[in-house]
């Protein structure tokens, strides 16, 4: 009992720190990556006592993004606009950040390991209805944005907040439909179980990943995930050229840092969901419980090594999908608001329903034929 408690606490802390650090690293990715894409240099000035320059190393902007920016953000004056609701203004950023962070509690980032006779899942909370939990936390994440926009006593913030809320609840439906199709395919709501079912290969070479079973759901979840995190091309609520900064125009300092962190944490969450559902999670092709098995050859490995390789594979896949989202951000122009709504309601929802219908039909036929 005690060991499970300690393991649970360690898992929770580890995954929280991982997500927060990954968000910070993504911020650096974004600045330098967008600079690469846009054929410019990006941030490269800040340095600690000029050490990098003295040693002749190129300045990659690490000190800028990871030291100077957070320092600036957290030491800025934190003001509340006149006439604004103080309590709600302070509550907004944290109400936006909290659901996104707790959504990571059910993410399995590795296979189960056995320590001192106890089987420990590499998942902070192993609940049976994990997919429902993720939908629930994403649903609650709407309120931070809504209240942040409304409590700023600023009409542009309110416009941004209203747009953001409408956009988020519209694309929640598309996300839900994509997840429903996946639940029908895998027959379970438990995320670890879904990842387990993606092990193995077809025809000896094609990994049994979800993307080959549900390509439509992949497109839907990618689109809906980017729309939920209000990133370009769906960043009209933040509309940098129209609404100044939309719903967080009246926020400065630590609270704005919280909103930014929400943005990147949701990028990581979307990438994690895509990895878990479509790219096999921590599964590596041909790597099974005991080692590599390829046809008649096999390479036996100790269990710990297999599990660690799974964890590394998971985070590599997540990083690649985060990079995909950053790439999409810096390539596509912004959607107009009515185009956005049309895509959500008239495009993705019928597509999702059709997908669910076809999936259910195929699953029933296949399982009927198997009997």
């Amino acid at each position, binding site marked *: 009992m005690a060991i499970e408690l300690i393991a649970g606490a360690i898992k929770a802390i580890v995954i929280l720190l991982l997500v927060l650090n990954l968000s910070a690293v993504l911020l650096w990715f974004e600045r330098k990556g967008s600079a690469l894409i846009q054929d410019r240099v990006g941030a490269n000035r800040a340095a600690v006592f000029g050490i990098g320059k003295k040693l002749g190393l190129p300045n990659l902007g690490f000190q800028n993004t990871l030291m100077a920016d957070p320092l600036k953000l957290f030491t800025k004056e934190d003001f509340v606009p006149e006439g604004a609701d103080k309590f709600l203004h302070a509550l907004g950023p944290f109400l936006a950040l909290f659901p996104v962070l707790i959504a990571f509690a059910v993410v399995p980032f590795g296979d189960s390991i056995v320590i001192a006779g106890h089987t420990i899942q590499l998942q902070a909370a192993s609940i049976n209805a994990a997919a*429902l939990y993720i*939908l*629930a936390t994403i*649903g*609650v994440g709407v309120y931070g944005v809504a209240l942040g926009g*409304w409590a700023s006593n600023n009409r542009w913030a309110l416009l941004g907040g*209203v747009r953001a809320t409408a956009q988020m*609840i519209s694309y929640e439906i598309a996300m839900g439909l994509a997840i429903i199709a996946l639940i029908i395919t895998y027959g379970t709501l438990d995320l670890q179980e879904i990842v387990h079912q993606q092990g193995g290969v077809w025809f000896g070479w094609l990994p049994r990943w979800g993307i080959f079973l549900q390509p439509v759901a992949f497109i839907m979840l990618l689109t809906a995930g980017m729309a939920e995190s209000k990133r370009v091309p769906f960043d009209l609520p933040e509309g940098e050229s129209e609404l100044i900064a939309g719903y967080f125009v009246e926020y400065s300092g630590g609270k704005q840092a919280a909103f930014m962190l929400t943005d990147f944490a949701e990028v990581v969450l979307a990438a994690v969901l895509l990895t878990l559902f479509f790219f096999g999670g921590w599964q590596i092709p041909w790597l099974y419980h005991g080692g590599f098995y390829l046809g008649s050859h096999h390479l036996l490995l100790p269990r710990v090594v297999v599990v660690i390789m799974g964890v590394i594979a998971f985070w590599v896949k997540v990083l690649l999908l985060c990079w995909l989202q950053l790439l999409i951000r810096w390539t596509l122009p912004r959607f107009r608001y009515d185009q956005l709504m049309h895509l959500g309601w008239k495009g993705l929802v019928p597509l999702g329903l059709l997908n669910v219908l076809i999936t259910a039909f195929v699953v029933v036929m296949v399982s009927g034929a198997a009997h």
Partner: protein
Amino acid sequence: MPPALFIFLAVVAILSSLGVVIQRNPVHCLLALIMTLISIGALFVALDAVAVGFLQIIVYVGAIMVLFLFVIWLLNLQTEEAPAGNLALKFFATIAVAAMAAELFAIVSKSRTALGAQTVTSGYGSIDSLAQTLFGQYLMAFETTSILLLVAVIGAVAVARRALPDRPRTAPTEGRPT
């Protein structure tokens, strides 16, 4: 569920529902209601009704309360001033509420709800068993509910849409309090 968890959730639920009734600003009332709904959802999950608990948070907190929030924004409701209303109404309402509270307390304390199963079968409350009961025994009610939702959506749109140029509108000055 362990008593400590229940006491915590019960205190949160009661304090936030008191907050709904007492606060002057409608948005604060809404936030208190959201907290109440989340604590009741947590109570559902602690009572092994996992599917219904998460559905409560997805549907109630994630959708219906957003609808309320939009309406509060649309009507631009501000903080209310000092409580209005005649004193007689409040007096009799208080008596009625106190009587109802006493009656409920009497019923609950005299009933034998303390007895009953303490553990449940595995798979109770999972979405599996909910779906089996819903689509098995209550299929008719389920289909009727879907039609009900369709009717509600159409009705809401029909009631709340603005007057079209060719549609007659009632004069807005009738019956305004003097």
